[in-house]
C-alpha cells in the first residue's frame, strides 16, 4: 500500500503513505496512476492530496530505485531490454529507446554505453510520471495539496501540479536535485516558473536551499498558511467550498488560469535524461544510497566541483 483514497461529499482524498517518506518510485507511481482516472468521475468534484507520514508530504523521487536502475545491470547489452521491462513495465518503448540509445552510444565510443542507454530507459518511467502529474494538473476539478514537513524534489513537483497548496508551518520546500548532479525531472521547473517566476526558480535550483512555509506563503507559492497539523482539514474545507460552485465554470476558469507548459515540460525531461547518464550522477546517487543520514543531500565538506566540461 502506498496510498489510500476515499470519496466523501464529492471530495476525493488521496493520502500518501508509502516507503520512508512517500518516495516516488514505481510502486507510488502505480498507486497514483490507480487514482488518476477517478478525477473524471462525475461524483468527484475536488481532489485533496495529503500525507500520512509524520515527517512530511514527500521526500521526492525514489533515488534508491533510480540508483538501482542505473547500476544493477552488469554485463551483456541484451540484458537491457529485460531490465527495462522489469523496472518500467513498458516493454516496447523502454526497450526500443534503450536499444537505439545503446547503439548510438557504441557508435560514438561512449565509455559507459550501457549506462547511457539505461538513462534513456528511465525516460519511459518519466513519461508515466509526467502523464500522471499532467492529469492532476489538468483535472477538470480543483486540486489541493495539503503539505506539512518535508516537501522536496518530486514531492514538491507533485504539490506544484495541484491548483492550490495549503501548508502548515512545519512545511519546507526544496529542489535538492542539483546537489546530485541532476535537475528536477517530474515537471518542477516549468511549474515553479508558472507559479512564481524564473528568478525564484533559479534561486531554489542553484542553491538547493529549502524554503519555510512562511516564506513560501510570502512568495505566493503557498496559498494558505495554517497551524501545525491543520493542513488536511483546511484543504478539505476549501475543497468543500469549491463543490458549491458550478463545475463547468470552475473547469473553464481553471483551464484559463492554469495553462500547462507542455513544451517546457518535454524539454525538462530531455535535459534530465541527458544528465542522468553522466558518471558524476551515478557517483552522487551512490553516496546518497550509502549514507546513513535521513537526508544526505549536502555534499561533503571537502567536496570540490569538477572543472567545467568534466562529467
Amino acid at each position: 500500500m502506498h496510498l489510500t483514497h476515499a470519496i466523501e461529499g464529492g471530495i476525493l482524498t488521496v493520502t500518501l503513505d508509502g516507503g520512508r517518506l512517500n518516495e516516488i518510485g514505481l510502486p507510488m507511481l502505480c498507486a497514483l496512476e490507480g487514482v488518476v482516472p477517478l478525477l473524471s468521475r462525475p461524483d468527484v468534484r475536488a481532489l485533496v492530496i495529503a500525507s500520512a507520514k509524520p515527517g512530511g508530504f514527500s521526500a521526492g523521487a525514489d533515488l534508491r530505485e533510480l540508483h538501482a536502475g542505473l547500476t544493477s545491470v552488469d554485463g551483456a547489452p541484451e540484458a537491457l531490454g529485460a531490465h527495462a521491462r522489469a523496472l518500467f513495465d513498458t516493454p516496447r518503448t523502454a526497450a526500443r529507446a534503450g536499444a537505439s540509445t545503446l547503439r548510438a552510444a557504441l557508435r560514438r565510443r561512449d565509455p559507459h554505453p550501457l549506462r547511457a542507454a539505461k538513462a534513456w530507459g528511465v525516460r519511459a518511467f518519466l513519461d508515466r510520471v509526467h502523464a500522471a502529474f499532467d492529469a492532476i494538473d489538468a483535472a477538470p476539478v480543483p486540486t489541493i495539496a495539503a503539505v506539512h514537513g518535508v516537501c522536496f524534489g518530486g514531492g514538491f513537483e507533485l504539490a506544484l501540479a495541484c491548483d492550490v497548496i495549503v501548508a502548515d508551518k512545519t512545511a519546507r520546500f526544496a529542489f535538492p536535485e542539483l546537489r546530485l548532479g541532476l535537475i528536477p525531472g517530474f515537471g518542477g521547473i516549468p511549474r515553479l516558473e508558472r507559479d512564481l517566476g524564473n528568478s525564484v526558480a533559479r534561486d531554489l535550483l542553484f542553491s538547493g536551499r529549502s524554503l519555510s512555509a512562511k516564506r513560501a506563503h510570502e512568495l505566493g507559492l503557498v496559498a494558505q498558511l495554517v497551524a501545525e497539523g491543520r493542513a488536511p482539514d483546511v484543504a478539505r474545507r476549501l475543497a468543500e467550498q469549491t463543490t458549491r460552485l458550478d463545475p463547468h465554470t470552475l473547469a473553464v476558469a481553471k483551464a484559463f488560469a492554469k495553462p500547462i507548459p507542455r513544451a517546457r515540460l518535454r524539454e525538462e525531461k530531455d535535459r534530465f535524461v541527458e544528465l542522468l547518464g553522466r558518471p558524476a550522477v551515478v557517483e552522487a546517487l551512490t553516496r546518497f544510497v550509502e549514507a546513513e543520514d535521513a537526508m544526505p543531500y549536502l555534499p561533503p565538506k571537502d567536496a570540490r566541483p569538477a572543472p567545467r566540461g568534466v562529467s
Partner: protein
Amino acid sequence: MSARADAVLDRLLALAAERFGKAREALAPEDDLFDALEIDSMQALSLLTALEETFEVEIPDYEVQDVRTFAELAEVVASRL
C-alpha cells in the same frame, strides 16, 4: 562571539531544549548540536524552521551546512538579524 550572537545563543539553547526534550542546563554552547540533541538532518530542518519563526529571519540551508555547535549556529542566526 558578538553581543547579538550571545543573546541569540541563549534563546536558541532554550528553544532547542524544549523542542527536543532536553534539559536546558545540559546543553553547552560548544556542544555538537546533532549529538547533544540526538537529532538527524530531518529534525535539524525542523529546528531551522523554528529558528526562522522565532527570530523572524530566513536562513538558507547552505549557511548552516558546516555548522556543528550551538555557538556557530547562533552566529549564523545573528548575522541575519
